[in-house]
Protein backbone atom coordinates (compact mmCIF):
# COMPACT_ATOMS: atom_id res chain seq x y z
CA UNK A 1 0.00 0.00 0.00
CA UNK A 2 1.54 3.33 -1.00
CA UNK A 3 1.46 6.60 0.94
CA UNK A 4 -1.27 8.08 -1.30
CA UNK A 5 -3.62 5.14 -0.63
CA UNK A 6 -2.98 5.30 3.14
CA UNK A 7 -3.62 9.07 3.09
CA UNK A 8 -6.85 8.57 1.14
CA UNK A 9 -7.97 5.86 3.58
CA UNK A 10 -7.28 8.08 6.62
CA UNK A 11 -9.13 10.97 4.96
CA UNK A 12 -12.15 8.75 4.26
CA UNK A 13 -12.11 7.52 7.88
CA UNK A 14 -12.01 11.11 9.16
CA UNK A 15 -14.89 12.11 6.84
CA UNK A 16 -16.85 9.01 7.97
CA UNK A 17 -16.19 9.91 11.61
CA UNK A 18 -17.33 13.50 11.11
CA UNK A 19 -20.49 12.45 9.21
CA UNK A 20 -21.27 9.75 11.81
CA UNK A 21 -20.64 12.17 14.68
CA UNK A 22 -22.81 14.87 13.13
CA UNK A 23 -25.56 12.34 12.45
CA UNK A 24 -25.43 11.07 16.05
CA UNK A 25 -25.52 14.62 17.40
CA UNK A 26 -28.52 15.30 15.15
CA UNK A 27 -30.26 12.21 16.50
CA UNK A 28 -29.45 13.20 20.09
CA UNK A 29 -30.99 16.60 19.38
CA UNK A 30 -34.06 14.88 17.99
CA UNK A 31 -34.45 12.87 21.20
CA UNK A 32 -34.64 16.19 23.04
CA UNK A 33 -37.70 16.97 20.98
CA UNK A 34 -39.53 13.87 22.17
CA UNK A 35 -38.87 12.02 18.93
CA UNK A 36 -38.75 8.76 20.85
CA UNK A 37 -42.44 9.12 21.58
CA UNK A 38 -43.08 9.87 17.90
CA UNK A 39 -41.27 6.66 16.92
CA UNK A 40 -43.37 4.84 19.49
CA UNK A 41 -46.52 6.39 18.03
CA UNK A 42 -45.56 5.25 14.53
CA UNK A 43 -45.11 1.73 15.91
CA UNK A 44 -48.49 1.92 17.61
CA UNK A 45 -50.08 3.16 14.39
CA UNK A 46 -48.95 -0.05 12.62
CA UNK A 47 -50.29 -2.18 15.48
CA UNK A 48 -53.64 -0.38 15.73
CA UNK A 49 -54.23 -0.30 11.98
CA UNK A 50 -52.66 -3.59 10.94
CA UNK A 51 -55.87 -4.97 9.38
CA UNK A 52 -56.32 -1.86 7.24
CA UNK A 53 -52.62 -1.92 6.30
CA UNK A 54 -52.90 -5.54 5.08
CA UNK A 55 -55.79 -4.52 2.85
CA UNK A 56 -53.98 -1.37 1.64
CA UNK A 57 -50.90 -3.46 0.82
CA UNK A 58 -53.01 -5.82 -1.27
CA UNK A 59 -54.68 -2.92 -3.11
CA UNK A 60 -51.53 -0.86 -3.64
CA UNK A 61 -49.11 -3.69 -4.48
CA UNK A 62 -50.79 -7.00 -5.22
CA UNK A 63 -53.56 -5.73 -7.51
CA UNK A 64 -51.14 -3.66 -9.66
CA UNK A 65 -48.86 -6.71 -9.87
CA UNK A 66 -51.83 -8.77 -11.03
CA UNK A 67 -52.77 -6.08 -13.57
CA UNK A 68 -49.19 -5.97 -14.89
CA UNK A 69 -49.18 -9.76 -15.13
CA UNK A 70 -52.24 -9.65 -17.41
CA UNK A 71 -50.66 -6.82 -19.42
CA UNK A 72 -47.36 -8.70 -19.78
CA UNK A 73 -49.23 -11.83 -20.82
CA UNK A 74 -51.00 -9.93 -23.61
CA UNK A 75 -47.70 -8.41 -24.81
CA UNK A 76 -45.86 -11.75 -24.90
CA UNK A 77 -48.77 -13.46 -26.68
CA UNK A 78 -48.76 -10.68 -29.31
CA UNK A 79 -45.02 -11.34 -29.89
CA UNK A 80 -45.90 -14.63 -31.60
CA UNK A 81 -47.64 -12.80 -34.44
CA UNK A 82 -45.16 -9.90 -34.68
CA UNK A 83 -42.71 -9.31 -37.52
CA UNK A 84 -38.97 -9.74 -36.90
CA UNK A 85 -38.54 -5.93 -36.64
CA UNK A 86 -41.17 -5.57 -33.92
CA UNK A 87 -40.19 -8.79 -32.17
CA UNK A 88 -37.26 -7.37 -30.15
CA UNK A 89 -39.15 -4.33 -28.93
CA UNK A 90 -42.24 -6.32 -27.89
CA UNK A 91 -40.20 -9.04 -26.22
CA UNK A 92 -38.18 -6.48 -24.25
CA UNK A 93 -41.39 -4.74 -23.21
CA UNK A 94 -42.93 -8.06 -22.13
CA UNK A 95 -39.95 -9.14 -20.05
CA UNK A 96 -39.69 -5.66 -18.45
CA UNK A 97 -43.34 -5.96 -17.37
CA UNK A 98 -42.75 -9.45 -15.95
CA UNK A 99 -39.63 -8.24 -14.09
CA UNK A 100 -41.84 -5.55 -12.54
CA UNK A 101 -44.49 -8.13 -11.59
CA UNK A 102 -41.91 -10.29 -9.80
CA UNK A 103 -40.37 -7.25 -8.05
CA UNK A 104 -43.66 -5.70 -6.89
CA UNK A 105 -44.85 -9.12 -5.74
CA UNK A 106 -41.62 -9.71 -3.78
CA UNK A 107 -41.95 -6.30 -2.09
CA UNK A 108 -45.56 -7.19 -1.24
CA UNK A 109 -44.46 -10.49 0.32
CA UNK A 110 -41.63 -8.92 2.36
CA UNK A 111 -43.87 -6.11 3.66
CA UNK A 112 -46.43 -8.71 4.76
CA UNK A 113 -43.75 -10.56 6.70
CA UNK A 114 -42.52 -7.29 8.24
CA UNK A 115 -46.04 -6.33 9.25
CA UNK A 116 -46.88 -9.64 10.92
CA UNK A 117 -43.53 -9.60 12.70
CA UNK A 118 -44.11 -6.09 14.00
CA UNK A 119 -47.78 -6.36 14.96
CA UNK A 120 -48.92 -9.94 15.63
CA UNK A 121 -47.83 -10.30 19.27
CA UNK A 122 -48.87 -6.73 20.14
CA UNK A 123 -52.42 -6.95 18.81
CA UNK A 124 -53.85 -9.95 20.64
CA UNK A 125 -57.53 -9.04 20.16
CA UNK A 126 -57.29 -9.13 16.39
CA UNK A 127 -54.62 -11.84 16.15
CA UNK A 128 -56.86 -14.32 14.29
CA UNK A 129 -57.92 -11.79 11.63
CA UNK A 130 -54.32 -10.56 11.25
CA UNK A 131 -53.07 -14.12 10.79
CA UNK A 132 -55.83 -14.90 8.27
CA UNK A 133 -55.09 -11.76 6.24
CA UNK A 134 -51.38 -12.50 6.33
CA UNK A 135 -51.92 -16.06 5.10
CA UNK A 136 -54.29 -14.90 2.33
CA UNK A 137 -51.76 -12.30 1.15
CA UNK A 138 -48.83 -14.72 1.23
CA UNK A 139 -50.85 -17.41 -0.56
CA UNK A 140 -51.96 -14.97 -3.27
CA UNK A 141 -48.41 -13.68 -3.66
CA UNK A 142 -46.97 -17.20 -3.96
CA UNK A 143 -49.61 -18.21 -6.52
CA UNK A 144 -48.86 -15.09 -8.61
CA UNK A 145 -45.12 -15.80 -8.53
CA UNK A 146 -45.56 -19.44 -9.56
CA UNK A 147 -48.09 -18.53 -12.26
CA UNK A 148 -45.73 -15.86 -13.66
CA UNK A 149 -42.79 -18.25 -13.85
CA UNK A 150 -44.93 -21.02 -15.39
CA UNK A 151 -46.28 -18.60 -18.01
CA UNK A 152 -42.74 -17.48 -18.94
CA UNK A 153 -41.76 -21.17 -19.22
CA UNK A 154 -44.82 -21.86 -21.37
CA UNK A 155 -43.82 -19.07 -23.75
CA UNK A 156 -40.20 -20.27 -23.88
CA UNK A 157 -40.07 -24.05 -23.78
CA UNK A 158 -36.28 -24.10 -23.18
CA UNK A 159 -36.70 -22.77 -19.65
CA UNK A 160 -36.75 -25.58 -17.11
CA UNK A 161 -37.31 -25.91 -13.38
CA UNK A 162 -40.28 -26.41 -11.11
CA UNK A 163 -40.93 -23.10 -9.26
CA UNK A 164 -42.21 -25.03 -6.23
CA UNK A 165 -38.99 -27.01 -5.96
CA UNK A 166 -35.92 -26.06 -3.93
CA UNK A 167 -33.79 -26.89 -6.99
CA UNK A 168 -35.63 -24.31 -9.10
CA UNK A 169 -32.86 -21.67 -9.30
CA UNK A 170 -30.27 -24.27 -10.30
CA UNK A 171 -32.50 -25.90 -12.94
CA UNK A 172 -33.68 -22.56 -14.33
CA UNK A 173 -30.15 -21.16 -14.58
CA UNK A 174 -28.97 -24.38 -16.20
CA UNK A 175 -31.60 -24.08 -18.94
CA UNK A 176 -30.53 -20.55 -19.93
CA UNK A 177 -28.18 -20.05 -22.86
CA UNK A 178 -24.71 -18.47 -22.53
CA UNK A 179 -25.85 -14.87 -23.17
CA UNK A 180 -28.72 -15.15 -20.69
CA UNK A 181 -26.45 -16.73 -18.06
CA UNK A 182 -23.92 -13.93 -18.50
CA UNK A 183 -26.69 -11.38 -17.95
CA UNK A 184 -27.82 -13.20 -14.77
CA UNK A 185 -24.23 -13.24 -13.44
CA UNK A 186 -23.74 -9.54 -14.22
CA UNK A 187 -27.02 -8.53 -12.61
CA UNK A 188 -26.35 -10.86 -9.66
CA UNK A 189 -22.92 -9.32 -9.05
CA UNK A 190 -24.21 -5.75 -9.23
CA UNK A 191 -27.03 -6.65 -6.87
CA UNK A 192 -24.52 -8.33 -4.50
CA UNK A 193 -22.38 -5.18 -4.45
CA UNK A 194 -25.42 -3.01 -3.79
CA UNK A 195 -26.65 -5.25 -0.95
CA UNK A 196 -23.15 -5.13 0.64
CA UNK A 197 -23.30 -1.33 0.66
CA UNK A 198 -26.84 -1.46 2.02
CA UNK A 199 -25.99 -3.83 4.87
CA UNK A 200 -22.98 -1.66 5.76
CA UNK A 201 -25.19 1.43 5.87
CA UNK A 202 -27.84 -0.47 7.87
CA UNK A 203 -25.40 -1.72 10.50
CA UNK A 204 -24.03 1.81 11.00
CA UNK A 205 -27.58 3.13 11.29
CA UNK A 206 -28.54 0.37 13.75
CA UNK A 207 -25.49 1.16 15.90
CA UNK A 208 -26.32 4.88 15.93
CA UNK A 209 -29.99 4.19 16.73
CA UNK A 210 -28.95 1.87 19.54
CA UNK A 211 -26.66 4.57 20.96
CA UNK A 212 -29.33 7.24 20.82
CA UNK A 213 -32.70 5.48 21.16
CA UNK A 214 -31.54 2.25 22.85
CA UNK A 215 -33.23 0.13 20.20
CA UNK A 216 -31.30 -2.97 21.32
CA UNK A 217 -28.57 -5.01 19.78
CA UNK A 218 -30.67 -7.59 17.91
CA UNK A 219 -30.78 -5.70 14.62
CA UNK A 220 -27.00 -5.15 14.82
CA UNK A 221 -26.51 -8.85 15.46
CA UNK A 222 -28.77 -9.92 12.56
CA UNK A 223 -27.28 -7.47 10.06
CA UNK A 224 -23.81 -8.56 11.19
CA UNK A 225 -24.71 -12.22 10.55
CA UNK A 226 -26.00 -11.19 7.12
CA UNK A 227 -22.74 -9.40 6.31
CA UNK A 228 -20.68 -12.37 7.46
CA UNK A 229 -22.79 -14.78 5.39
CA UNK A 230 -22.38 -12.51 2.33
CA UNK A 231 -18.60 -12.42 2.72
CA UNK A 232 -18.23 -16.14 3.47
CA UNK A 233 -20.62 -17.33 0.75
CA UNK A 234 -18.86 -15.12 -1.83
CA UNK A 235 -15.55 -16.68 -0.84
CA UNK A 236 -16.96 -20.24 -0.91
CA UNK A 237 -18.40 -19.75 -4.43
CA UNK A 238 -15.15 -18.12 -5.58
CA UNK A 239 -13.19 -21.18 -4.38
CA UNK A 240 -15.72 -23.57 -5.96
CA UNK A 241 -15.40 -21.80 -9.30
CA UNK A 242 -11.61 -21.65 -9.40
Amino acid at each position, binding site marked *: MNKKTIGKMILLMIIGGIVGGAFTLGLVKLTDRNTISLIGEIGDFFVDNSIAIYIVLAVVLFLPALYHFQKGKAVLISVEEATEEDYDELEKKGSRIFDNVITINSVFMVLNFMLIGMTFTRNKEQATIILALFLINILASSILEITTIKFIQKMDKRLKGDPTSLKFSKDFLGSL*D*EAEQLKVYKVGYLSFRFSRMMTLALIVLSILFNFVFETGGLSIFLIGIMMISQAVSYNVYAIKNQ
Partner: protein
Amino acid sequence: MPLYNTLKVQRAKAGINQGKLGELAGVSRQTISSIERGEYNPSITLVLKLAQIFNVTVEEIFNYKEDSNE
Protein backbone atom coordinates in the same frame (compact mmCIF):
# COMPACT_ATOMS: atom_id res chain seq x y z
CA MET B 1 -16.99 -4.02 -29.94
CA PRO B 2 -14.70 -4.62 -32.94
CA LEU B 3 -16.31 -7.99 -33.77
CA TYR B 4 -18.41 -7.74 -36.89
CA ASN B 5 -20.68 -10.41 -38.31
CA THR B 6 -22.76 -11.30 -41.34
CA LEU B 7 -25.15 -13.51 -39.43
CA LYS B 8 -28.21 -11.72 -40.76
CA VAL B 9 -27.01 -12.15 -44.33
CA GLN B 10 -26.23 -15.83 -43.78
CA ARG B 11 -29.62 -16.31 -42.23
CA ALA B 12 -31.36 -14.60 -45.14
CA LYS B 13 -29.42 -16.78 -47.60
CA ALA B 14 -30.49 -19.91 -45.72
CA GLY B 15 -34.04 -18.59 -45.47
CA ILE B 16 -34.43 -19.10 -41.74
CA ASN B 17 -35.69 -16.73 -39.08
CA GLN B 18 -34.01 -15.86 -35.77
CA GLY B 19 -36.20 -18.26 -33.83
CA LYS B 20 -35.33 -21.22 -36.04
CA LEU B 21 -31.61 -20.37 -35.96
CA GLY B 22 -31.77 -20.11 -32.17
CA GLU B 23 -33.42 -23.52 -32.06
CA LEU B 24 -30.71 -25.04 -34.28
CA ALA B 25 -27.91 -23.46 -32.25
CA GLY B 26 -29.52 -24.24 -28.88
CA VAL B 27 -29.87 -20.60 -27.82
CA SER B 28 -32.76 -18.16 -27.52
CA ARG B 29 -34.04 -15.95 -30.33
CA GLN B 30 -32.99 -12.91 -28.29
CA THR B 31 -29.38 -14.15 -28.20
CA ILE B 32 -29.33 -14.47 -32.00
CA SER B 33 -30.76 -10.96 -32.24
CA SER B 34 -28.12 -9.62 -29.81
CA ILE B 35 -25.32 -11.22 -31.84
CA GLU B 36 -26.68 -9.75 -35.09
CA ARG B 37 -26.82 -6.30 -33.54
CA GLY B 38 -23.26 -6.66 -32.21
CA GLU B 39 -24.43 -6.37 -28.61
CA TYR B 40 -23.18 -9.80 -27.58
CA ASN B 41 -19.93 -11.56 -28.52
CA PRO B 42 -20.66 -15.30 -28.63
CA SER B 43 -18.41 -18.00 -27.19
CA ILE B 44 -16.11 -19.98 -29.50
CA THR B 45 -18.43 -22.99 -29.14
CA LEU B 46 -21.42 -21.00 -30.35
CA VAL B 47 -19.41 -19.39 -33.17
CA LEU B 48 -18.34 -22.86 -34.40
CA LYS B 49 -21.90 -24.14 -34.08
CA LEU B 50 -23.22 -21.24 -36.19
CA ALA B 51 -20.55 -21.81 -38.85
CA GLN B 52 -21.50 -25.49 -38.92
CA ILE B 53 -25.21 -24.68 -39.32
CA PHE B 54 -24.54 -22.47 -42.36
CA ASN B 55 -21.80 -24.79 -43.62
CA VAL B 56 -19.33 -21.92 -43.97
CA THR B 57 -16.04 -20.97 -42.29
CA VAL B 58 -16.05 -18.91 -39.11
CA GLU B 59 -14.39 -16.00 -40.99
CA GLU B 60 -17.30 -15.85 -43.39
CA ILE B 61 -19.59 -15.00 -40.50
CA PHE B 62 -17.34 -13.23 -38.00
CA ASN B 63 -14.44 -10.87 -38.51
CA TYR B 64 -12.40 -8.86 -36.08
CA LYS B 65 -11.46 -5.29 -37.01
CA GLU B 66 -9.66 -2.87 -34.69
CA ASP B 67 -11.61 0.37 -34.38
CA SER B 68 -9.74 3.21 -36.11
CA ASN B 69 -10.06 5.48 -33.06
CA GLU B 70 -8.51 2.90 -30.68
